[in-house]
């Protein structure tokens, strides 16, 4: 219960800068990202939402059934999105730049994963 309180505490405070979550790939790799980044994916946000009482939310770990390569790219996108959604209106979003960061070799897998993650 104490763990849950702690988890709930961290979820409701504005200290999201220190609020890190773990994202795990199916081949054993772990990625640590800020919660704000994780929230870029609706699926992850719901999974990690403490109000839902999911096990993942308690553990603050979100498993993704994808290879590490894919998970890494997913998180990269989520960082990109989280940053520029908060950016001022005058700041230009380098849309094309991110496109170049997607290697064709993984694009179909990534498409599948992105669709699952609702992003």
């Amino acid at each position, binding site marked *: 219960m104490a763990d849950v309180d702690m988890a709930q505490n961290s979820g409701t405070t504005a200290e999201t800068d220190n609020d890190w979550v773990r994202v795990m790939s199916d081949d054993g790799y772990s990625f640590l990202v800020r919660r704000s980044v994780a929230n870029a994916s609706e699926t992850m946000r719901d999974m990690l939402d403490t109000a839902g009482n999911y096990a993942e939310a308690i553990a603050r770990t979100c498993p993704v059934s994808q290879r590490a390569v894919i998970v890494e790219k997913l998180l990269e*996108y989520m960082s990109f*999105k989280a940053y*520029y*959604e*908060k950016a001022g209106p005058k700041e230009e979003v380098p849309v094309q730049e991110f496109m170049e960061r*997607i290697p*064709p070799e993984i*694009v*179909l897998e990534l498409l*599948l994963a992105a669709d699952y993650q609702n992003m």
Partner: protein
Amino acid sequence: MSLPDDRVPTLVQYCQRVASVHVDSISSLGDELRYDLVKPILERCTVDQLMRLEQASPYLQKETPEIWKGLCFRTYPAANDRYRRGEILEPDSWKEQYFDLVQEEARKFEAVGNKIRRQRLEAEERKKDSGIRVTTQQPTGKRRWGVSVQPKTLFQKTKSEASRLQKNMYSKPMLPPMPNNGKNYRVLPAANSALLPTSTSNSRVTVNTVVHSVSASGSSSSVSSTSKGSPLVTTSNPVESPRKKPRLDLPADSQLPKPMAVKRDPTASLFLPKHRAYSQRIK
């Protein structure tokens, strides 16, 4: 939250774009991707790419007719119009329809190509026909009034030759045609010769007509009455030569009777030159 979501494209959209760009490198779309996920990719495929991806993932074939329909209309807009107007019914397979249209197009193209080729060949044929040809045939004689001349046998030739000789030998020899076509030739002197000397003067030549009368009686020296002593033909231009030959000798001989002087034999002047000899022309 205050910013609209459309500033950053979704990862799905990003992936679709990248996949469309590299669609040649994609051997198969697999079997996990839903149709509506890959639809934007397929819509941007060429016919060959679409065929390949369909074969690799047969489950997509159920839903691709709409893509084939789009391909039909984009490639053959004329067919699109016909369909809209209801002339073509909805085919069972738009894919088949597409390939039917391709074949139809190829047939039309070939037909046009053949027509052009045929026309060109015909034009060349016509040119050849009107050109010069080497032949061993004898040329046929020129046809007059549409009657063609039949080649004569040797016997016929001999016969006609003989009859012609026969005709000519015993008949009056044919006179040669009159010089000057019979014009400008006076057998007798003109009746109103006294009125004649009308000098027509132009810029270059002054021609005074000289008239010599040759009278049958000739007893009196009527030389001076109707003729001038010497011909008065003056020219300022050496090129123009007088047309009338002066006959100085005649007045002198007018005293002598001339029994045949009235009628001149046309053949006598046959060999008279029309103009003066070159060496005699006035310089």
